[in-house]
């Protein structure tokens, strides 16, 4: 297994983006995004559909490249293959092998991160308990419901105990009870020092984040705690603040 090359100095930010821009076929999707996220923070990315959230987090992981600017993750310039060992990424779409069982999916991805034997078994148990999927592990994924697939996907991201969790709309299609327990776990993980970046459209979830980043049309229009964002917009709820700031951001252009 590869040794982790990143700097473990807690002073160095988990995520450090400087002037990131991304263009697809001469259409600018992200422009001049700078963002720093300290270790152990639970950071929420909020923004309308198509605003560039997924693109931004893909650039963080190094799957996608920015056209301009620099990305440092845990102090290491990206993209860097060995850094992927430290990330747990859950994509927006459930990328699962439908022909396999849940357990086979977990074992496969676990093996990709170098987990094996008793440790793999233990990690699978932990991760699936967390998403309440343990009873269904031996079923083919093609027989899973939408929410079950989402939970399996989340379990895979948690499997190798990553230092940085990047979750693209993790709780879509998951019922409120389970959602609550997943968020409790995310909060607990961040208390243990795991940095978590999560995109969401759900305002109640956004309220649980330490800080929020508001994206609109590829621009980061506000970064602050949920309370501060509500106050700065002069509204009473995050939802109103989101709409108000969004309009303001649009009008500035």
């Amino acid at each position: 297994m590869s040794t982790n090359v990143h700097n473990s100095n807690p002073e160095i930010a988990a995520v450090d983006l400087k002037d990131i821009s991304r263009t697809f076929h001469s259409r600018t999707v992200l422009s001049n995004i700078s963002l720093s996220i300290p270790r152990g923070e639970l950071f929420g990315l909020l923004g309308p559909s198509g605003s560039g959230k997924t693109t931004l987090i893909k650039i963080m992981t190094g799957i996608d490249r920015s056209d301009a600017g620099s990305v440092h993750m845990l102090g290491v310039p990206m993209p860097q293959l060995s850094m992927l060992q430290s990330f747990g990424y859950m994509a927006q779409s459930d990328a699962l092998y439908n022909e396999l069982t849940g357990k086979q999916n977990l074992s496969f991805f676990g093996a990709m991160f170098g987990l094996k034997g008793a440790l793999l078994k233990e990690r699978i148990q932990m991760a699936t308990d967390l998403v309440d999927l343990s009873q269904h592990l031996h079923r083919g994924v093609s027989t899973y419901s939408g929410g079950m697939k989402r939970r399996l996907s989340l379990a895979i991201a948690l499997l190798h105990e990553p230092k940085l969790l990047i979750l693209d709309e993790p709780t879509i299609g998951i019922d409120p009870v389970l959602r609550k327990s997943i968020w409790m776990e995310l909060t607990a993980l961040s208390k243990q020092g795991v940095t978590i970046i999560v995109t969401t459209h759900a305002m109640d979830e956004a309220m649980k984040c330490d800080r929020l980043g508001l994206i609109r049309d590829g621009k980061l229009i506000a970064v602050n705690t949920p309370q501060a964002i509500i106050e700065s917009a002069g509204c009473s709820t995050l939802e109103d603040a989101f709409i108000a700031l969004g309009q303001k951001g649009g009008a500035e252009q």
Partner: protein
Amino acid sequence: MRIRALAIRIIRQFLRDKRTLALLFLAPLLILSLMKLVFAGQSVSPAIGIIDIPPSLASKFEGTNATITDYKTNESAYSALEEGKLDAILQFTGDTPELLLEGSDPSINKAVLLFLQSSLQTGNSGIALSIHYLHGGPDMAPFDSFGPVLIGFFSFFFVFILAGVSFLRERTSGTLERLLTTPIRRSEVVLGYLTGFGIFTLLQATLIAWFSVDVLGLYMVGNIGSILLINLLLSLTALTLGTLLSSFASSEFQIIQFIPIVIVPQAFFSGLFNLDAMNPWLQKLSYIMPLKYGADAMKGIMIRGEGWNDYQLDVYVLVGFSLVFAILNVLALKKHRSM
């Protein structure tokens, strides 16, 4: 209403997909052109070696389309026949003309016999021709000669489609992207595919070879291990080529579109049809076709009982093709993850 809307949607989808359009209109032209080149080229002219033929007889060959070479010794003529430079040798033992056919290709055998019949008037005028075969025999059917090619072709064809479609699935289902968010190397992805499929490929090669020899009773004088080796290498080439080309397809349907572009031309050049009738510079195209090397080796092993020294070049070329395609695969994955 619904039907109309549906029809319009389908037409729009078609118009957006330039490749499907090209396939629809250009591929038939391509195939028709190939057919014409193969069947309407120069007619096959047999190459015959003669040893000690009475001048009266030899003069009858003048002005015909056959290539006649006079050999001084039996040995030189035989080695030319072995090397495939000659289709037949004509010589006299006593009063009877004796014909030794190379024998691998029934259609060439027939052409030689027809040629001799018309120029020597054997048969009718009473000169009995005694016929021998270097390989095969009089009851070798055309299928025996192109069977080995077909074995190679089917291995190649199915592995190509299978590999192409499954790699495409991996890509379109998003699992490739997820896979690439793990610390796996691009070369590991390609090697993993090669290994996983390699096992199935080996099984498939074994099954096809066994079926054609034991069930279909295909003419076979060579070593079954050699057949499996060649078939496996051919499948590996198909596998690497299939996965490589699948990066340029965005749906299963587009994989199917590679059949007339990549597979069918190879069938034409692999020995199913006699290329002697084709324009010589077009014949050279066969050098870039993996199937040709596989088919040549298979044919040599099954019909002529060739050993390692005879087919090793084909092995090297097939291994080379697989390596090149595999490396290109690794590079193509850069499209999905730059590191």
